[in-house]
């Protein structure tokens, strides 16, 4: 929900009252999930550059140069809230979303990893089973191996499970970003738009309360569509007509189109009348905010695209593809339905102002809470691992060990990957905790003979409006900033998940770090 001061800011900047469609647009754009308003200020301080880094945070995923024109693209993302409401679809769409972030940059996803935090098996069984099946059905069907899955069990996650999925991609061709360097047509490709996931971004920006029904806010995934979208997109990138690409994630068409325009310093005009719908009678704001999966937008060079008839690629793969709108010089976000304008907002006004929230040092109080992890005797995590196809693509060297190793396609190089979390230490001392976690990643990558390249992070915390939680967050950033600089281990991508809190009880601060290292010449 918009706060009173946000409503006032919007009214002042817009110079008028927003119409009902625009209100929905603002509500989604100003949500924590879309705007990162509580964390933006802090994230800017992270160490994000280095000789290998081609693209850092702010892109769909981070890109690291590994020489010989080869690049590794990776990112970790949380799908915690949806996975608690609907474990199967929540986890499945988490995997789908993170893979789209990778191939949107022009790279083929070559492996997936995940880090899962659940309550104790005896009272979280349905969530564990649902999440594992969701990840397994989605990843296996798309044909990308899941090579690492770290599972942690603690009571703090009973009402707030964490599902963090990481995907790693590879390309030896051009990298594409979401920043258009020239104007073009905006093309919508992929699945049809339905009522699923409307308000998902807003849902993920609020804590849970007992007995609420939030099912309609969870998206529904279709891995087969995703597989087609990967193949079609990679074919399209080869044509040389793509100016920019953006995945439709949180707040669907709204976020993807406005972000692309904003990044390129352009305006954008889109016509919702053309959007293929799965449900009858959808309102314009529903179409804008729908989080239906397996969709993305491309900005294409209109003449070249026409001349080469690139649209036939999508015909071959049986995917919807049409011109949704175009970039303009106006700097406005304009939405029409046929000839009627339903939304016309200067893009700058859509950006939520950064918040510097209050913090409160509770380090003394925390020391009482330290308790070490418990050993769970009656649960065999191998029964989870067996459900993931770790061998598809035929390049998996090591899977489900502390560090996973995957050979690059047609190359003597291999990459080593690890995800680490340590909520116990992070709860005891957030700053030292995250340092320990990152040192662990660095040391383990070294231990398998790889050169540590960069990291991605999933920062899972409680409600940032609580000064104690905000303190945990800023302490974590402080620790990460220092240790990354010291190790020359830049952060190239990541995600923040706040509001992991139910009925006022928050999770332990849980920064999950995913790290990637390079093995120049892999010999068995």
């Amino acid at each position, binding site marked *: 929900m918009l706060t009173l001061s946000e409503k006032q800011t919007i009214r002042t900047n817009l110079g008028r009252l927003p119409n009902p469609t625009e209100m929905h647009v603002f509500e989604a754009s100003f949500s924590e999930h879309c705007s990162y308003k509580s964390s933006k200020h802090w994230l800017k301080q992270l160490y994000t550059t280095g000789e290998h880094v081609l693209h850092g945070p702010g892109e769909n995923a981070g890109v690291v140069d590994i020489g010989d024109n080869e690049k590794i693209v990776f990112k970790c993302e949380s799908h915690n809230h949806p996975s608690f409401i609907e474990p199967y679809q929540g986890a499945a769409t988490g995997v789908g979303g993170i893979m789209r972030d990778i191939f949107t940059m022009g790279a083929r996803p070559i492996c997936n990893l995940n880090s899962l935090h659940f309550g104790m098996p005896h009272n979280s069984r349905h969530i564990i089973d649902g999440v594992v099946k969701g990840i397994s059905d989605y990843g296996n*069907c798309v044909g990308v191996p899941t090579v690492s899955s770290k599972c942690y069990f603690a009571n703090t996650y009973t009402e707030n499970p964490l599902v963090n999925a990481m995907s790693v991609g590879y390309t030896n061709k051009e990298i594409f970003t979401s920043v258009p360097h020239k104007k073009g047509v905006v093309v919508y490709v992929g699945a049809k738009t339905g009522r699923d996931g409307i308000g998902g971004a807003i849902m993920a920006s609020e804590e849970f309360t007992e007995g609420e029904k939030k099912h309609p806010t969870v998206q529904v995934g279709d891995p087969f569509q995703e597989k087609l979208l990967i193949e079609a997109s990679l074919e399209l990138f080869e044509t040389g007509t793509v100016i920019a690409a953006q995945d439709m994630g949180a707040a669907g068409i709204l976020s993807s189109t406005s972000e692309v325009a904003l990044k390129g310093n352009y305006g954008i005009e889109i016509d919702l009348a053309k959007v293929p719908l799965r449900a009858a009678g959808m309102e314009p704001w529903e179409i804008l905010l729908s989080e239906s999966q397996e969709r993305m937008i491309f900005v294409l060079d209109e003449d070249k695209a026409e001349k080469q008839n690139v649209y036939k690629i999508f015909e071959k793969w049986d995917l919807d593809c049409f011109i949704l709108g175009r970039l303009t010089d106006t700097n406005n976000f304009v939405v029409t339905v046929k000839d009627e304008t339903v939304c016309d907002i200067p893009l700058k006004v859509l950006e939520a102002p950064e918040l510097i929230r209050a913090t409160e040092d509770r380090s003394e109080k925390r020391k009482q809470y330290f308790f070490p992890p418990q050993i769970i005797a009656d649960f065999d995590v191998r029964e989870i691992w067996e459900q993931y196809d770790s061998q598809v693509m*035929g390049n998996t060297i090591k899977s489900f060990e502390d560090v996973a190793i995957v050979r690059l396609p047609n190359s003597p190089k291999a990459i080593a990957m690890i995800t680490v979390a340590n909520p116990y230490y992070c709860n005891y001392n957030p700053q030292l905790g995250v340092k320990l976690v990152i040192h662990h990643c660095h040391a383990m990558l070294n231990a398998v003979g790889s050169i540590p390249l960069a990291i991605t992070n999933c920062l899972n915390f409680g409600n940032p409006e609580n000064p104690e939680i905000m303190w945990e967050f800023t302490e974590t950033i402080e620790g990460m900033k220092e240790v990354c600089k010291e190790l020359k281990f830049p952060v190239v991508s990541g995600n923040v998940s706040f509001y992991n809190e139910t009925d006022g009880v928050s999770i332990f601060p849980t920064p999950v770090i995913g790290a990637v290292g390079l093995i120049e010449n892999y010999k068995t």
Partner: protein
Amino acid sequence: MKTAIIIFPGSNCDQETEKFLYECTGVRPMMVWHKEAVLPDADLYVLPGGFSYGDNLRAGAISAHSPILKAIKRAADEGRQILGICNGFQILCEAGLLPGTLLPNKSQNFICKPVKIESQGGHNYTIPIAHKEGNYYSPSIVNVAFTYTEDINGSMGNIAGVYNNQLNVLGMMPHPERAFESFHCSQDGITIFKTLFNLHK
């Protein structure tokens, strides 16, 4: 030996199968899109693993009606050799080129792990499986090609692979293309392939 790989939407083992066939035969396989009506000339047609059409309806059910399947049936009638791996096996069963059907695993879960299989000649191999519907059932007697050495997924008689009556169409659940490089669980994939198609020098 000339080979061709048939690609369906959702096939996802085509790349490694291509590498594997090249390794075994020394000739680059041809890649054929499922919407083609005519097959290129080859000694062996391979239907690779994956999730064609997302396993919607039933694994292999929709692909069994792809245009290319008519050509595959003609090739089978002419006595050409056809190999279906995993999802390829499921498609061949759905298309009626092989007897029987593949039911969901008795655990109801996807299983990905290396297993031991035995050929009719009594040879043992270690080779990975990765499937959710690999529980073979046939009401009639079939020509068994491979069996698991233990019960893996509930398959009738632990069957892992079967031939048609003419012995020119073979379907198998294990993935030989995941067992041929030095870092794979074994290199038995090559031995199996060369034995099946008499490529040993």
